[in-house]
């Protein structure tokens, strides 16, 4: 039963490949547009996430009050947010970036804050005794100590950023892989839908690989668990 799926619902890989090769000219610009959106959104989302988590970390009293709001921000359905964003910011790139930012920043905040919280008490103790200022404590101890957690958050965010970009295009866009996919879907071109998915996945894997590469470089020299 699982394999009795009509071709128009789940096209054969060869069909998908064929369409991917032949259709390149027609979707290359969509791809570019979505990657741009995803990269910009990811960078902004991560920056916002880091700034927010650092601020909350440095202002523990604010943290209590703001944390629930962050959770809430993840629960505003896009179909509600979409008209508001469009009305405030039009059909341009800004509302889309807001959506991606909203998707990316939350995993960063949760992971980073948890990273800060787990800072080794012994090292913290040494730094305090040595008279480290709050900013030194932060730069020399808390940040490097939280780095693995931050990367954990970055990985989740990177994974979501491409999908976030695709979703943001449903806000109303004239190009982008999300638009391409909706058009394909509504004109029943399932092969194209799958081409779109394949590229979304490739984009996402590239993003993820970049983060892993960065992690390798930045955490170089840290002791692996088997050494």
């Amino acid at each position, binding site marked *: 039963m699982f394999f009795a799926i009509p071709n128009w619902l789940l096209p054969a890989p060869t069909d998908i490949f064929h369409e991917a090769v032949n259709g390149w000219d027609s979707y290359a610009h969509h791809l570019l547009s979505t990657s741009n959106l995803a990269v910009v959104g990811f960078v902004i989302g991560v920056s916002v996430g880091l700034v927010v988590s650092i601020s909350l970390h440095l202002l523990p009293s604010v943290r209590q009050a703001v944390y629930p709001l962050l959770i809430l921000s993840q629960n505003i359905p896009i179909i509600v947010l979409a008209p508001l964003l469009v009305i405030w910011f039009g059909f341009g790139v800004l509302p889309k970036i807001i959506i991606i930012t909203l998707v990316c920043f939350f995993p960063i905040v949760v992971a980073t804050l948890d990273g800060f919280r787990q800072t080794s008490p*012994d*090292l913290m*103790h*040494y*730094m*305090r*005794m*040595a*008279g*480290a*200022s709050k900013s*030194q404590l932060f730069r*020399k*101890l808390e940040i*490097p100590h939280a780095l693995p957690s931050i990367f954990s958050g970055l990985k989740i965010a990177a994974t979501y950023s491409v999908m976030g970009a695709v979703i943001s295009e449903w806000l109303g866009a004239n190009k982008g892989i999300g638009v391409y996919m909706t058009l394909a879907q509504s004109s029943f071109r399932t092969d194209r839908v799958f081409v779109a998915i394949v590229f979304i996945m490739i984009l996402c894997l590239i993003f993820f690989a970049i983060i892993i590469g960065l992690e390798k470089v930045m*955490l170089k*020299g*840290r*002791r692996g668990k088997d*050494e």
Partner: protein
Amino acid sequence: MSELIAESITKSFADKQILQNVSFTVKEGEFVALLGPSGSGKSTIFHLIGGMSRPDEGTFSLDGKDITGQRGMISYTPQNPSLFPWRTIIQNVVLGAEIQKKPDYQTAQEMLEKAGLKGYENAYPYQLSGGMQQRVAFVRALLSPQDFICLDEPFSALDEFTRLEMQQWLLNIWQENKKSILFVTHNIEEALYLADRLLILSNNPATIKYDFSLPFVRPRDENLFLTEEFLQWKRKIYQALQENNHIPS
């Protein structure tokens, strides 16, 4: 060049009193050893001087200035080395200096060599033996710019000879720079060999039970260990400590 005065320091953790009315002075350029049973409160005294928490009562002053609860006034080796696992050895030893000013890698390099750690500059802490890590923490304290040094059992993981070299080196540095040193150790000979004065802590809660001034002339060398005077002092300190002779609880 700095003088530390601790005045009637009292401290409790939860409902348990640890320090009661502890007062002492470390004069300018003086080398003072602190002895006492395990768990009596020696490290706690260091943490209080370092401003990690405030004493329940009492004050510390450095050069007449009240430093109670203030951090960064002393340089310090913690009882466990507390090295930063993501920093190489050379990056670890400059950390104390880095916090106060620009670190001097040249001097750091020389100091590491003197501590027998040549060739380990770019190793990570986990690649070092226990004693080597302790030496790194010691070098880190020596490279810190403060004039008042608190050392919490800095040589406990070293063999006799490495320990002797480190002691001799510490004495040289201390004499050259006339820093003031407060030094925790469980080794009576070490305390006698290094210190001008010797404080003995009682237990439960801790107070300063004895404050001995040592008469040995400086510079000191290993022959001191063999003098009759040294042996007498050793016995005296031993007895003083023995009055605490029950396992603390």
